[in-house]
């Protein structure tokens, strides 16, 4: 039993700090800089404590908490992605000026709860836990999206996120109910044993899988379930948009990886084709609409949609390469996308606008910021020698090996389309004259985020070997 508690420790730690922060909130009468700083540090400590208690599964797989949860390479890798995302978001929130004068303790508490929810989600071994994890992330996340409650757009974002979340949860519940009817259990292990019966009761089994795919599709924001993304990103506070662009999508992909690649790969239901088609549509539609954007946050929103299409190539590819490819893509995407958001967030105060023309002449005003954003964008476009290229290359390898050649060609072609809009930003920064010359200043926490993300974006591109080996060590793909 001690084992169970050890494995649950990160969740306990996160929840404990979240409640501590809520307690702090109750004590604070008027929001002040001091209380904001205190909550910030408490959050950082909480995240570090959670990271310390995160035990490495070392290649094995442990079922715990009455077999409701599982601790394996997949949960481990994506728990880290979650914690790092939330850490970066915390750092970026600390100096975000829109939050001035708000009670921040609650905000940070909700961030920690959201992190706990995602860790729950990626280590679920039972559909009920998946549902709980999604809700535990979902409820804090729509409050976070509406945290600037005096701004209409923020409230609009919250409502949209809430409605979409409720809708997709309903879908998931339908799926779970049918699966329970077919297999007599909500456990993933049971489902694995009874995957043959899904095929026997084909129409019903397919319907169940359909509902599950739709509900995961909303979380990962696959086309055609992506409509909420641009509006929510634009309306929500930018650090929350950064959170939503990475954590739930990657975690959603992780749980899809668990369900579709580890539990059901041999069920014969043919849903891999569905995933492949979704991946193709997602990246193509995301990129083509991205071309039309003139607002950088909306542009990054569509780019994040397209990137989930690429990540899905890992799931479609399957096997060792596919699983490690999805790990790799999740990691790399975390750094490059968070980096791009970090630049946008740190500039938003000085530039005062997210429209592309506001970025004109940035290379003259701040050569370093322009260079960093260029690095992240080149990486997002998948051009060597950056991490984005390695990640894309990895999932292409996986999909090619599994025989999805048309998907690889489509993915490669999509890289060209996406370069079209990423370079629109670079174009503004380098080829246009600045409208103003007001100097830019960065807070220390922003500098830290930028340093970390840019380092990994470059380092993973130049020397990926260490990460590839690590990813392979934590691969959970069924051994042939």
């Amino acid at each position, binding site marked *: 039993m001690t084992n169970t508690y050890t494995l649950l420790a990160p969740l306990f730690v996160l929840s404990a700090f979240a409640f501590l922060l809520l307690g702090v909130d109750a004590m604070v009468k008027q929001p002040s800089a001091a209380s904001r700083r205190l909550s910030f540090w408490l959050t950082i400590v909480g995240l570090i404590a959670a990271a310390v208690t995160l035990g490495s599964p070392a290649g094995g797989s442990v079922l715990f908490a009455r077999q409701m949860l599982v601790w394996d390479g997949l949960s481990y890798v994506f728990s880290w992605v979650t914690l790092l995302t939330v850490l970066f978001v915390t750092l970026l929130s600390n100096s975000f000026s829109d939050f001035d004068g708000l009670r921040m303790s609650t905000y940070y508490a909700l961030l920690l709860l959201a992190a706990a929810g995602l860790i729950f989600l990626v280590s679920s071994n039972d559909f009920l836990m998946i549902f709980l994890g999604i809700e535990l992330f979902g409820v804090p996340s729509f409050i976070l999206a509406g945290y600037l409650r005096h701004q209409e757009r923020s409230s609009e974002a919250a409502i949209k996120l809430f409605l979409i979340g409720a809708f997709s949860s309903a879908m998931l519940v339908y799926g779970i109910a049918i699966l329970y009817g077919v297999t007599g259990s909500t456990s993933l292990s049971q489902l694995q044993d009874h995957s043959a019966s899904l095929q026997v009761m084909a129409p019903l089994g397919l319907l169940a899988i359909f509902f599950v795919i739709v509900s995961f599709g909303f979380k990962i924001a696959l086309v055609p379930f992506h409509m909420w993304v641009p509006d929510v990103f634009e309306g929500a506070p930018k650090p929350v948009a950064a959170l939503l662009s990475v954590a739930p999508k990657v975690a959603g992909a992780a749980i899809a990886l668990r369900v579709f690649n580890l539990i059901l790969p041999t069920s014969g239901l043919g849903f891999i084709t569905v995933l492949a088609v979704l991946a193709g549509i997602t990246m193509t539609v995301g990129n083509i609409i991205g071309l039309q954007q003139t607002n950088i946050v909306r542009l990054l929103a569509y780019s994040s949609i397209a990137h989930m299409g690429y990540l899905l190539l890992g799931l479609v590819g399957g096997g060792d390469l596919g699983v490690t490819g999805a790990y790799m893509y999740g990691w790399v995407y975390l750094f490059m996308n968070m980096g791009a958001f970090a630049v946008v967030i740190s500039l938003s105060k000085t530039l005062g606008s997210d429209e592309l023309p506001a970025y004109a002449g940035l*290379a003259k005003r701040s050569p370093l910021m322009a260079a960093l954003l260029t690095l992240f964008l080149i990486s997002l476009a998948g051009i*060597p020698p950056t991490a984005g290229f390695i990640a894309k*290359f990895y999932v*292409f390898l996986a999909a090619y*090996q599994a025989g999805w*050649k048309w998907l690889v060609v489509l993915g*490669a072609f999509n890289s*060209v389309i996406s370069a079209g809009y990423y370079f629109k930003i670079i174009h503004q920064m380098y080829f246009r004259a600045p409208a103003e010359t007001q100097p830019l200043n960065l807070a220390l926490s922003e500098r830290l985020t930028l340093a970390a993300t840019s380092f990994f974006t470059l380092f993973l591109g130049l020397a990926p070997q260490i990460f*590839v080996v690590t990813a392979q060590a934590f691969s959970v793909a069924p051994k042939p």
Partner: protein
Amino acid sequence: MHVLSLLTWLPLIGGLIILLVPKEQKTAVRALAAITSGAAFIVSIWLWTHFAAGTADFQFVEKLDWIPAFRIRYFMAVDGLSLAMLVLTTLLSLLAIIASFNIQERVKEYFFFFLLLETAMLGVFVALDFFLFYVFWELTLVPMYFLIGIWGGPKKEYAAIKFFLFTLFGSVFMLVSILALYFHSSPHTFDFTELLAQNATFTRSFQILAFIGLYVGFSVKIPAFPLHTWLPLAHVEAPTAISVILAGVLLKMGLYGIMRFSFALLPVATHQLIYYVAIIAVINVVYGSFCAMSQTDIKRMIAYSSINHMGYAMLGMVSLSAVGFNGAVLQMVNHGIITGALFLLVGVLYDRAHTRDINAFGGLGAKLPVYTGFMMMACFASLGLPLLAGFVSEFLCFLSSFQVYPYLAVISLVGVLITAAFFLILIKKVFLGPFNTRWESLKDMDMRELVACTPLLILMVVFGLFPSIVLDPLSTSLTHLVDLLKLP
């Protein structure tokens, strides 16, 4: 002895040092850039003198594990083909850097991007691991995008992104072919020599698909019809020195890739598809020359003549014979030298007159004797006048293609006529006839321009008289490449 790594990374190291120099110190930045590229040139000459010409083996081999999980290696080596390209690259880079001393805006960034580009270009010619090759190939794109887009002419921004997207479009197809080759080898590898050793196991249909993928990637860079439309724009809008590099080096990367990788790795597909490549070569020659003739902008005319001249090189290449390969490589080198000189010289005129309209001039011969002499010589070399460099290589290309595709060779002779015609029209309109008094105040070439152009003009004569200087070290390697194409 890591001489190839030294050569490849030297420019980038210089570029990084430049970033540390305060931006007011323009002279220091220029000097550093010139010293770095000069050092790279010296290293490449050292390679040239220490290269063993009698063997077709790869020399100066460097092999280190890079990403062992995928058996990706840091594998660099040279044979005769790459050696010629290396020396051409370092020479043109050095001269182009000297020619860019008159750049006044954002000097630091300019030379940084330039040196980064030089590293990437050298890397393309020495990398023998497909993955590494692809990384360098893509790395040429980004600095070139900035160099055209920041320092170019009126339509620079459009030219930059068009260049970028066209090349990226080609290279993703190349990437898919590379992946295919990887999975069709066992054990999976990106290593050129290992792939070569097992290419007999590749089926015919696979070879054809892989060939087409690689060809799309390479042909954008040549540029071969119909993917050539980025070139006139990019050449015209790019600053002078960058046009030199574009025409002199970047275009060669396409043919280099085809000769090195597509042909050697996929011999069955090569024999299957070479006729279509030959037709494209003829289109390049004829269509390119007609397009050039109809231009009134001198730079645009030379840009189209590049399409035409790369067509000659393709003609030599498609003969799949030792003579043809020698002709093609010699044509690549000569075109680099001649067109490099032509772009530099057009830049000289544009800097003074701020127009490149062919009809705006007249009778400059009396006013600018030195410039006129230089320009006429470069034009004559380009149109293939005997005793100058262009003649030998074009002759070899035609000779070899005539043996294989006589009709195509005859059709492409039309291109030669037109080429001669438009260069003579150019000379007549700009340098002969009554003097246009508008240009009374024009000055002849200054020291910087002379230093940049003279070496190229000397080489035009030297290579015209003694082509063996270029060909002797190469021919063994090229003969070997032809032997690889013989089907069992």
